[in-house]
């Protein structure tokens, strides 16, 4: 890592730390007095839940910022994930705490941009392309969680959160082999699908997640991102 990259990461970590801290404050304000200052907090129906979500996401940014500052030499995968996470939190929380997110959101987007600069566009692009299907699987898990949190039944919420979390875990652990992947995906998604089959979207999501999970578990992965991998021919396809 070059000196300029280190400096960029230092700037990114500071931006993220300030943005994350302000985000946590915004979340606390939404959870406690959000219904009393609706013009500032977006006049949300579920201000407590959205405040708690914002606090959690803000805290996750703080953790990531600290990791950026303390990690000796961050890998391209780490920098790519951090870039995306900062951007995702910046976008998601713009829908949770109204105007209170303007400053934290701007800081996080800036942090994402600086982290991307430190990572370098070619590395970022290569890591994203290499992990694209796993990313889609993780995205499906996040979508499952998004649907789950809107459910009226606590059991359905729990089933959906578990299902979404397991899909994300499956995306991360997609090296663990086809059988494990199938077991994880089926176990993760069946209860939520059983409770919500009539939406059509959850069964479709499950089928697609299963297909992507099987493919990612079969796909040969590179030994190191950013370089061509030396692969055994029999394991391809």
């Amino acid at each position, binding site marked *: 890592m070059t000196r300029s990259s280190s400096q960029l990461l230092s700037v990114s970590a500071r931006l993220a730390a300030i943005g994350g801290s302000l985000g946590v404050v915004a979340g606390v304000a939404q959870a406690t007095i959000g219904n009393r200052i609706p013009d500032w907090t977006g006049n949300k129906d579920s201000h407590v839940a959205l405040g708690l979500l914002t606090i959690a996401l803000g805290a996750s940014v703080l953790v990531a910022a600290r990791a950026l500052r303390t990690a000796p030499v961050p890998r391209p995968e780490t920098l790519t994930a951090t870039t995306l996470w900062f951007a995702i939190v910046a976008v998601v929380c713009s829908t949770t705490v109204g105007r209170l997110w303007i400053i934290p959101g701007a800081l996080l987007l800036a942090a994402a941009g600086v982290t991307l600069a430190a990572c370098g566009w070619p590395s970022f692009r290569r890591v994203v392309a290499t992990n694209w299907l796993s990313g889609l699987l993780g995205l499906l898990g996040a979508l499952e969680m998004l649907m789950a949190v809107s459910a009226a039944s606590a059991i359905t919420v729990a089933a959906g959160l578990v299902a979404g979390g397991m899909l994300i875990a499956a995306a991360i652990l997609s090296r663990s082999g086809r059988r494990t992947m199938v077991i994880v995906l089926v176990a993760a998604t069946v209860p939520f699908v059983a409770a919500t089959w009539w939406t059509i979207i959850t069964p479709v999501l499950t089928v697609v997640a299963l297909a992507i999970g099987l493919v990612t578990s079969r796909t040969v992965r590179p030994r190191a991102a950013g370089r061509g991998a030396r*692969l055994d021919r029999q394991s391809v396809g």
Partner: protein
Amino acid sequence: MHEPTIELDPPGSAAGSSDDMTTNTPVGEAESMTRRSMLHRVGVGAATVVVAGIGLGSYRVFDNGVLDAGDGTAYDAWANWRADGTPLGTVAAAILAANPHNTQPWIFHVAADSVELFADPTRRTGTLDALDREHHIGLGCALENLVLAADARGYQGTVTLLPDPADPTHVATVALTAGPSAPSALHDAIGDRHSNRGPYTSGAVPIEVLDSLDAVAAGLDGVNVRWFTTPADLAAMGALIIDATRAIIDDELQSTDSFAWFRNNRDDIDSHMDGLTLDAQGLSPVVLAVAKMLPATSRTAGDSFWLDQTRTVHTATAAAYGVITVANPDDPALRLIGGRLLQRIHLAATVQRIGLQHMNQITERIDRDATLAQRSTFASEMDALLAQPGRHVLSTFRIGYPVRAGRLSPRRPVNQVTR
């Protein structure tokens, strides 16, 4: 044995094009890899498109309340209506009454010994209810719930209709005096009563059940219910309702005034806490979910759907029609009493697990024709169907054993309707 190896960028990587590929394998195998790489890219692209589609659908599920129908602040009134034993608690029951297009056209003034019921003139449906017939009937329904709730809370409720001749919006005073607590089956059904716009089974409603619904009219003077149960009567009434529905759709003003009270998305429901919703249309779970995920329908598309539902579901599966009749449907007092009877019948039907849907298309056209000073075929045809000289239709509904339970409609909370 050691297998030959190939060097390649990982599938799907930006550097994984055939140009970048280096290999120590024969040319045919390289071409195979190129095809495989191409197929892989196509597959990844297709998966991306599919996941993007799922993303859109998932967001609609989240945003439009597909998984939380009947939950949230807009529906809290259905869960909390028994909690308050004071006069204010009677209002909590009153606001759950049936009312036209869920406009909730009421305002309450609550004191320690009385509850005053006022009409809210800002909550009219315009040309759809041209003579305020449904407006008053809805207030009568609320009045009935209020009286039942007063009885259950240990108050003797004495009703005075239209107590102030100088103020036509002051529709009733309910004086509350201490009395024995008198909970009733009708009172207990208040939180379970919903208009059921879904299909009904082919089972007929037995005559003794209709008699029991008749019996609730005791003490309400000047109003009656006439039942239509024979196949010929059902067909005639169904045809008239379909014709009236078509006439409303063809009348752009009526159609527009009706559409103004349709809440097409969850944000509108949470914001207004009134109006008709997709949830309350009696659709199957799958159709309802798809309808909520699709973009909002236009007025004309909604009208077509309504006509289709009226023809293929509402009239096609009605086990019987009930018609509330009065001597003078323009008399506000009779409208209020008729509303009380309508609410009682709906509650009694709820107790017996019978579905009920208010079907006011005929009277909406009768009143619209009256305001336009045009001869109404609907008035004469309805009088002919009633065959009760001196009595006229006040409101119409269908009943039957429902295929699926009715769903909750949003309600404004008590603090928004009390002054």
